[in-house]
């Protein structure tokens, strides 16, 4: 199939998504819930693009290409909404994400500055009992990557999404932490997390937060 990305033609295989076409064309759209190891999820809506002939932007990660499609990564409405979504996500965290995180990088890329909407934030809640994995619930943005990688790659099913709406978050096992779950300590969740809601304890130390502080 042949599609156009920002005016440039690109060949994509049958079944390719718009995001794959965008990347094949060397263009860029930011993503937050996407991980190439996982089935597309379509939750973050940061990868929105414009498609000629469609009145609304579409999520590029979950939309399949059709032959002749013309994709616009710079569609103003799509970029506006993506920026607004990242602002919203930043507004739910009690503190800005660490500079090295994917979320911080996407915020930089979209030029997100002051937040237009603020309000309640997630409550601080930590589990640091695992020798390698740190869980910081307040940093969770419910992208589902940890839950999905534990399901779709490791198959340990140790993690779950919890709650719904603004309270949506994640838990290991029956909310008992990694140690008391079916976790096999593969670390895939920490690897994919875009915010350090799950990260390596040793990297927290590297970021300046000592384990003791984190545990306190």
């Amino acid at each position: 199939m042949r599609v156009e990305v920002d005016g440039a033609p690109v060949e994509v295989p049958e079944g390719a998504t718009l995001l794959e076409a965008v990347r094949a064309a060397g263009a860029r759209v930011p993503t937050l819930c996407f991980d190439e190891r996982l089935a597309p999820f379509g939750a973050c809506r940061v990868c929105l693009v414009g498609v000629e002939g469609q009145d609304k932007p579409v999520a590029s990660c979950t939309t399949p290409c059709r032959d002749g499609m013309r994709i616009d990564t710079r569609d103003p409405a799509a970029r506006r909404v993506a920026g607004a979504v990242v602002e919203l996500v930043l507004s739910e965290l009690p503190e800005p994400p660490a500079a090295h995180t994917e979320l911080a990088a996407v915020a930089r890329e979209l030029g997100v500055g002051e937040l237009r909407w603020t309000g309640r934030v997630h409550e601080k809640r930590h589990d640091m009992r695992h020798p390698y994995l740190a869980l910081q619930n307040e940093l969770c943005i419910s992208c589902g990557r940890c839950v999905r990688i534990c399901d779709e790659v490791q198959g340990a099913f140790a993690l779950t999404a919890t709650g719904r709406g603004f309270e949506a978050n994640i838990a290991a096992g029956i909310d008992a932490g990694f140690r008391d779950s079916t976790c096999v300590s593969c670390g895939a969740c920490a690897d994919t997390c875009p915010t350090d809601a799950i990260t390596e304890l040793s990297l927290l130390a590297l970021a300046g937060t000592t384990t003791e502080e984190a545990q306190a």
Partner: protein
Amino acid sequence: MSRNLTALVARHSSLGEPTAVELLAQAVRERGAVVADDVRDVAARTGLPEATVHGIATFYDDLREPRGALDVRVCTGTACFAATGGRHVAELSDGLGLALGERSEDGSVSLGETVCLGFCHCSPAVRVGDVVDAGPQAVARVLSREPRQAAEPQAQSLLAEPVLTRAGDWSGLRRVLAELTPDQLVEEVAQAGVLGRGGAAFPAAVKWRLTRQAPAAERFVVCNGDEGDAGSYIDKQLMEHSPELLLEGMALAAYAIGARHGVVLVRSEYPRSRPALEEAAERARERGLLGPDALGDGIPFDVIVVDGAGSYVVGEETALLACLQGLRGVVSSRPPYPAQSGVRGLPTLVHNVETLCNIPFIAARGAQAYRELSPGATPGSKLVCFNERFARPGVFEIPFGTSVRELCEDVAGGLRDGARLKAVQIGGPLGGILPASLLDTPFDLEPLAAVGCMVGHGSLVGFDEETGMRDLARHLLGFGAQESCGKCFPCRVGLTRAHEMVQGDAAVDRARLEELLEALELGSLCAHGGGMPAPIRSLIAHFPDELGLA
């Protein structure tokens, strides 16, 4: 929806066994709450991982809050809001000495909210156990521990010959089995131009063709009985008063697409729907209309009923499919469409109750007769329902194209006690709000869309002059935020932020609100986040001052 979890469900339990959601609800009924041992037990019984079951238990209203021996659920739907402005909630809370979501220390009483009980014709409604009391004295009766079951409205048809407000007689199925091939039935439905009645108005025949064509050994017909739209009690009416009609519609759909199993997901807020359906199914089985030879010799079809557990978004078809497999009722992006991959990953036709109830008429009388029901408008007829503010609230079958004024003033008799209609919200919480000045708009898809409204589920919730529009915005956005499934970011955070913006009396920055509504509208994954801006935009357009915009 996780493909692996779906595979585990399919591997470990056969259709008709209780789902994880139902087992957890059972635990709540028996012990008042889900504890870790229940999670382990349900995991062991369903083959689902423990963490997954924990996630399910934290998703649904029915599973999240502790229940007392006496469990009081107060309806906070839009009709009840229109009736009292929310006073009934405060009265119950004060009377019981419990906040919403609380259980008394001794475990004897609990109070929670529920949206909505489908007694919008006599709001406010309160549920105690399986008794739903409703009306101005309901709160007092509940507080004195003497609730009594409220009366159900009688549906009426404005049509010469009712299509939907009738008991099913299975004549459509009989004729089809004798005269039509499955393909011919699909064509008949296509000719009839049936549009989905759940809100999206998607052509039914397109779904039928896709499902029929999807290669698979097995296919399913799923009936969406999760009529969560506050103010609507149409599907409730159909499930409880015309269950045979629904079953016949499902059997016809099954015949057309080649399904052997039908599943109805019934919301738990309607305690009488499941028994009504199951009794009707049993009667049909006795007559051989369901069962091993339902669709011809050796061609079986049967229907099972699965309970929901309190979640508005489960009315969305992918979330519905997740719920009826016992999983978290979270929306999935499409593709894959249910027609390709639904129940157990197999092709599945999903329709709401009313849509399926249209099919028997077409089967018995043909497409042409169906199209003639609403000349010059959307084919078929429509059920609408009115809230308690109207003089003659109830469910009515109407032709499409009737003006909203006729509906409100002639059919429903205008507001009771001579009150003036300030505005009417049509089609549920995602529907736009029509100010009194636009009542001449015809009740049909396109004319309503042109004024920022929709047919939706067909409910008309009228507000009188007592209703403050800022309060209404707060009510709607509060509902929206609470019911967000939490998957897509705009809806998950945005609805909470929008709700926060209309809290208190401070001026609302109009530009910021509209920017937020745009993000919700264009960014959301499903119609929940995408639809919540519609009524708010109506309020911005028609009641900017009351909203406190600056």
